[in-house]
């Protein structure tokens, strides 16, 4: 960190360009989950910028950052840069986003503050029209804002002028939205699990914003989230929010369209643009007012609406009992609802849940109830016990609630039962997008089922949240987000004298999720607890992957931390000279701190193959020696017949010596 001009502790610098000033908060620019601070652009000192620093434990919308940064600045607060910075408060790193400082003021004050009512003409011309255009531009880039509300709108200029959208990336999509600003299907989900949603969700929020600015009142005042949801479901959003206000006919038209609870009927950018041009009101398809012939009784209450029934079942899943294997329920869905699509989905849900139902009798299984609720209401989030999230919001909800062990367990079940995949298939069918997302969740289900180091729910956390920092107790406080920062973080952590190896479930999952190369072999090796040298190979392999993506660097303290844990990889050499040579070579590698070299040393396939082959040959030779010793020690080797033969041979030899001697003597005398 670079020292600042006041001589205080060094100021955090983002990507070498933007200097943040933790000592200068800008409360008027705070977001619900991010605090604003002054910032300076080193490259362009005259530019007025500020930084939003995300709260600890709040995942940012990493998926939209690159697109937002590339967008032209008109219509939305200009995002200049983003990334992790070291942060003095609480230590560690935080995710920061640097924006152009808005010239105008915030429209609605801070959240919960007083809203100044706007005249209708001014609202239409300076807010509705420009924001409609902005939403159209975002939709063309496949980005939803999901943070449209009065206190997140700014005047473009100091004297007034058009309105622009504020930050939408410092928290999960719709995380900071008051309940009134969210459509029914989004309001059903946990605020961290609402997902990116659709452009229609932005139109809805814009509609509620228009209502709030017209009336100068909070549309949801005096009602909690549950109450608002119930009222929206029974009376409809328009009547629940705008019913008591005196609005002009034009505003009633546009708000009816923007607050329509049917996503397919809700106005989009095109309809809004048409209305803005010549006040054309698109033909609204009348809602189907067909009331089922008979109700379905659940928990002592009669339900005619599948959405209401699904909501009740989701809230009391343990009371869902199907004594007849669901036959009565299926019959009701087919005959009374008169909706074959729902009936088919119900049948599919039952087919997928056969193993959960255990023969179709008796007590409910939460996974079956979750599928049943999806079948009854295909717009609702996944609801499993306490968890309520849209498929696209499962990752952010997991990140926001990971510390809760019970919640983790429920999330694990959700992946194992492939509920997100089921939701995607029900909502999107078999389209290309659905296929890609469904495959992702299917793969994650496999990882959760595996459950080993480098897999499990931790892997899901990092796979679904690219900006999630590593939660390993070894380096959590350092807020490591990028793979290239893992080894430097471990190098700093080495000073604390940890006894265990520099690897745990979170680190392994983090590296495996972030790596661009395939780490499957290393993860598998790491889990071979009965083969010490393979565990070491897996450990060093993952660290080497992190090293590769960060460039060649020296980590001497990390290497010293690793050294005692490398013993299995050295001791596994059978040949004493090779083992001694490996032991002699290791200190030099440790001193150099080259993690990649350490990995190559441990994973030396050629040397290990030679050692393995040599050892096998030595064992075979040893076995043959034992066999020969046993033979020589046994009575069989003292065969009397053999002994006799040897003795007779000796006799012949002796006689031959005597004969040769006799010849020599005779020859001597004859000569």
């Amino acid at each position: 960190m670079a020292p600042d001009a006041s001589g205080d502790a060094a100021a955090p610098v983002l990507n070498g360009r933007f200097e943040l000033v933790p000592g200068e908060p800008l409360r008027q620019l705070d977001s619900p989950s991010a605090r604003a601070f002054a910032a300076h652009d080193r490259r362009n000192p005259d530019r007025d910028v500020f930084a939003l620093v995300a709260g600890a434990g709040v995942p940012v919308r990493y998926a939209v950052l690159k697109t937002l940064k590339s967008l032209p600045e008109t219509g939305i607060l200009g995002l200049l840069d983003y990334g992790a910075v070291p942060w003095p408060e609480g230590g560690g790193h935080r995710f920061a986003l640097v924006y152009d400082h808005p010239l105008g003021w915030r429209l609605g004050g801070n959240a919960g503050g007083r809203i100044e009512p706007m005249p209708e003409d001014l609202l239409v011309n300076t807010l509705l029209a420009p924001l409609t255009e902005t939403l159209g531009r975002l939709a063309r880039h496949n980005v939803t804002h999901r943070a449209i509300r009065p206190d997140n709108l700014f005047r473009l200029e100091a004297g007034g002028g058009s309105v622009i959208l504020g930050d939408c990336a410092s928290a999960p999509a719709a995380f900071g939205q008051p309940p009134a600003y969210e459509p029914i299907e989004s309001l059903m989900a946990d605020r961290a699990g609402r997902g990116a949603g659709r452009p229609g969700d932005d139109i809805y929020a814009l509609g509620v914003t228009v209502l709030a600015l017209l009336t100068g009142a909070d549309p949801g005042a005096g009602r909690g989230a549950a109450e608002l949801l119930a009222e929206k479901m029974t009376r409809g959003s328009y009547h629940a929010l705008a019913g008591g206000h005196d609005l002009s006919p034009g505003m009633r038209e546009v708000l009816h369209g923007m607050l329509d609870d049917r996503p397919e009927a809700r106005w989009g950018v095109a309809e809004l643009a048409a209305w803005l041009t010549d006040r054309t009101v698109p033909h609204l398809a009348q809602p189907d007012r067909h009331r089922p012939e008979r109700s379905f009784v659940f928990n002592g209450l009669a339900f005619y609406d599948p959405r209401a029934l699904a909501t009740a079942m989701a809230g009391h899943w343990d009371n869902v009992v199907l004594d007849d294997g669901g036959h009565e329920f299926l019959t009701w869905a087919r005959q009374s609802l008169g909706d074959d699509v729902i009936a088919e989905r119900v049948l599919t849900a039952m087919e997928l849940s056969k193993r959960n139902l255990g023969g179709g009798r008796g007590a409910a299984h939460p996974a079956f109830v979750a599928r049943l609720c999806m079948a009854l209401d295909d717009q609702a989030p996944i609801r499993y016990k306490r968890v309520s999230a849209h498929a696209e919001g499962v990752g952010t909800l997991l990140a926001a609630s990971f510390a809760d062990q019970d919640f983790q367990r429920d999330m694990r079940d959700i992946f194992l039962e492939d509920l997100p995949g089921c939701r995607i298939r029900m909502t999107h069918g078999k389209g290309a997008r659905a296929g890609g997302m469904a495959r992702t969740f299917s793969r994650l289900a496999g990882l959760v089922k595996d459950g080993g180091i480098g897999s499990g729910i931790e892997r899901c956390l990092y796979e679904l949240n690219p900006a999630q920092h590593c939660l390993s107790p070894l380096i959590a406080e350092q807020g490591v987000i990028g793979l290239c920062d893992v080894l430097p973080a471990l190098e700093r952590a080495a000073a604390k004298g940890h006894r265990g190896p520099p690897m745990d479930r979170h680190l392994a999952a983090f590296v495996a999720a972030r790596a661009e190369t395939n780490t499957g072999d290393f993860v598998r090796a790491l889990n071979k607890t009965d083969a010490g040298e393979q565990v070491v190979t897996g450990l060093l392999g993952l660290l080497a992957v992190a090293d590769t993506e960060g460039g060649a660097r020296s980590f001497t303290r990390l290497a010293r931390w690793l050294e005692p844990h490398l013993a299995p990889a050295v001791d596994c050499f059978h040949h004493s000279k090779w083992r001694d040579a490996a032991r002699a070579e290791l200190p030099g590698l440790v001193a150099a701190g080259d993690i990649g070299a350490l990995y190559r040393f441990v994973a030396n396939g050629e040397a290990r193959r030679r050692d393995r082959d040599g050892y096998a040959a030595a064992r075979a030779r040893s076995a043959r020696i034992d066999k020969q010793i046993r033979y020589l020690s046994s009575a069989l080797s003292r065969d009397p017949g053999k002994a006799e033969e040897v003795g007779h041979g000796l006799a012949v030899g002796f006689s031959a010596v005597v004969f040769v001697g006799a010849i020599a003597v005779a020859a001597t005398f004859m000569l």
Partner: protein
Amino acid sequence: MAATRPRNRKTAKTRGPVYWGTVIFFSLALGMVFAMPTVLLIGMGLLPTFAALLVDVHPRKFAAWSVGLLNGSGLLPYLGKLWAGGNTLDGAVAVLSDLLAWLVIYSAAGVGWLIYMGMPALGALVMEVRARQGIRRLKSEKEALIAEWGDQVAGEPDGR
């Protein structure tokens, strides 16, 4: 389990007494034609050897060789004396009339038999010594393997 070794190795077809008797007879007959005194002395002097040939059933003829070589050793001086005297029939008869010659020649053959019968005991001792030496050498080789590859190399090849 140690492999058993076959008791007797028969690598060639055993030749019986009829064969050897025929060989001796025709050899002597032929020799009588060309060198009667020598053949006469050899024929009479090596009678123990011919007998050993006839009774020895072992394919390698250890008894015949043992007796024959010592029998021949006893005969050699008298053959030399015969040849030195001109290889005459009178010389041969003179040797054959000498009781001491008979004693020397036939005693040598007898010693050959004694050696043949006594050596198996020495053979057992030799085998014992060779087995012990072999065990020592093999143990030394195994110790070198253990020093090179560690104690586990002494286990069974399948990992036991």
